[in-house]
């Protein structure tokens, strides 16, 4: 359990997955925001800058790649780490987006939590210099 000081934004169009992920992360002590597509995620981030974005790849309205592009173009958000997640073979996505970290659906919950933690710690170290 971590103190609820770190905020994770979860973006997924599949309602069941979105809610399940949010519950799991809250149980781990994170503060969780949710959005069902990229545009909604940008609206959330206009209010609160999260410490990590966990985003699905295939979504309506604004998909994962488009969301990441917007985040990288935004001077405030560009340092927020992003973890992609997809039901599609993520090895193919990694080749298309080198440098991005991906989670393969369906998730292994422990691996998911480890990867979330690692992304947050890495970012904290980078920010801390």
């Amino acid at each position, binding site marked *: 359990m971590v103190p609820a000081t770190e905020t994770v934004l979860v973006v997924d*169009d*599949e*309602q*069941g*997955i979105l809610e399940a992920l949010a519950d799991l992360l809250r149980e781990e002590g994170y503060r969780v925001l949710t959005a*069902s597509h990229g545009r909604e995620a940008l609206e959330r981030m206009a209010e609160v800058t999260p410490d990590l974005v966990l985003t699905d*790849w*295939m*979504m*309506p*309205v604004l998909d994962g790649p488009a969301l990441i592009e917007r985040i990288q173009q935004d001077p405030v958000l560009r340092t927020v780490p992003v973890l992609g997640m*997809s*039901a*599609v*073979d993520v090895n*193919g996505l990694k080749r298309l987006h080198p440098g991005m970290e991906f989670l393969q*659906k*369906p998730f292994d919950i422990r691996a998911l939590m480890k990867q979330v933690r690692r992304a947050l710690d890495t970012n904290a170290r980078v920010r801390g210099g």
Partner: protein
Amino acid sequence: MSPSEQHPPAFERIATGVPGLDPVLGGGLVASGVYIVVGEPGAGKTIFANQLCYSQAQQGTRCLYVTLLAESHSRMLANLRSMAFFDASQLPQRIYYVSGFRMLEEQGLPGLLELLRREMRNHGAGILVLDGLVQAQEAAGSSRDFKKFIHELQVSAGLSRFTALLLTSSVGPTVHPEYTMVDGILELRERTAAMRSWRELQVRKFRGSASLNGTHHFRISEAGLEVFPRLETMVSRSQPPDWGTQRVRFGVPTLDAMIPEGFAAASTTLVMGPPGCGKTLLGASHLAEGIRLGEPCLMVSFYEGPDRLLHKTANVGLSLGSAVKDGRLVLQWNMPAECNLDLVAHTMLEDVRKRGVKRLFVDGLSAMVETTNEPARISPFFAALTQELRRHGVTTVFTLETPRLFGPEMDVPLGTGLSGVAENLLFMRHLELNGRLRRLLSIFKLRDADYDPTLREFLITSQGIEIQPPFQPSPELLLTGIARFPGNHS
């Protein structure tokens, strides 16, 4: 007509990628049509829709798959990965999965419709699958709202040139009045009788062209869906060609001598008799003669497997093994249980067309007759099958088991329907005479040819079948299996 004048576009067809389905639909789905696929959970709707998407993606068409409270995309893809049609390289560029449930929950049918239109446009997709139409139906405020949704989707499909499949579980009546607005309704179902179940597809409605009526079997395997159109609906209504005076022979000199001109090419011969009387060897002789003449041959069997058959025929001097090895003879063996008539016919006719088969031997027709789940179809099925074989110029021998080994009664299984459509009928039976079991053969009927109608004993030797001179005992009870030599009344 000036060059600028525009014609109404002809119906473009979308291949479904499901073997056997396009012929049922008269050539495929009509482009820009909206189709409902209805069926209980597990009926195969999701596999069908995905098979269509992957097939279309192979041809460069982009597809959008929208779910509404259906199984998760990761679970769906995990299930699809074992399917032969699944191609991970199409994801996510050409096949794109999204959920529309949240939009439906928050903004109802207008929000869902907007999402579908926008996503189809954004992805430049030509195929839309909406998986879970029943959710949309439940979210509709009224039947009128649901009809309006379908109508507006149809308008969008027409304007934006996409073809839509709407998948829905059937609850209550399988076809709701609202569904009548769409361009086609395909129903998938599983039927059960006793402990046996099978899958059926029926085209309930199809605008744009005629479709094959009634139900058609389909199966789901790692190859995906495969439809086996009901044979009776597939055969050509036109007369088969006249094969003229072409004649064929069994290749058994003493038997051929009973039919001096030979029997008609492309005809159907039914050999009936009890187990062990030599029917299989007679049919194998028919094939051996074809192989000798260089004709492509096919054997379809139900009881004896290929190895056993080759061993058995080799023992009587019929060497079929080399013809199997070099492809002149193909052996198709079917389990003698739970026979699917259309699957057997499809496999058989596919080889007939592919290799130009000229001689066919179907051994153990009783297995088809006794294990089909559609006994009422047997007669029209065989009429259609023999018609199609005749059309391809295939000279066919069928064997059919009669149940009684001995006795004063003869069982001719007329109920199979084949005895009515076969041009040639040969009857074989056992005869017990002076403590010795003998085999008898007689020709009951032969189309367009003179034949020797005498009853003959025949022997099975290491050299094959040998027909003996006309049988001498008193003929009065010969066909009953109980014979007497003249003067012997004991």
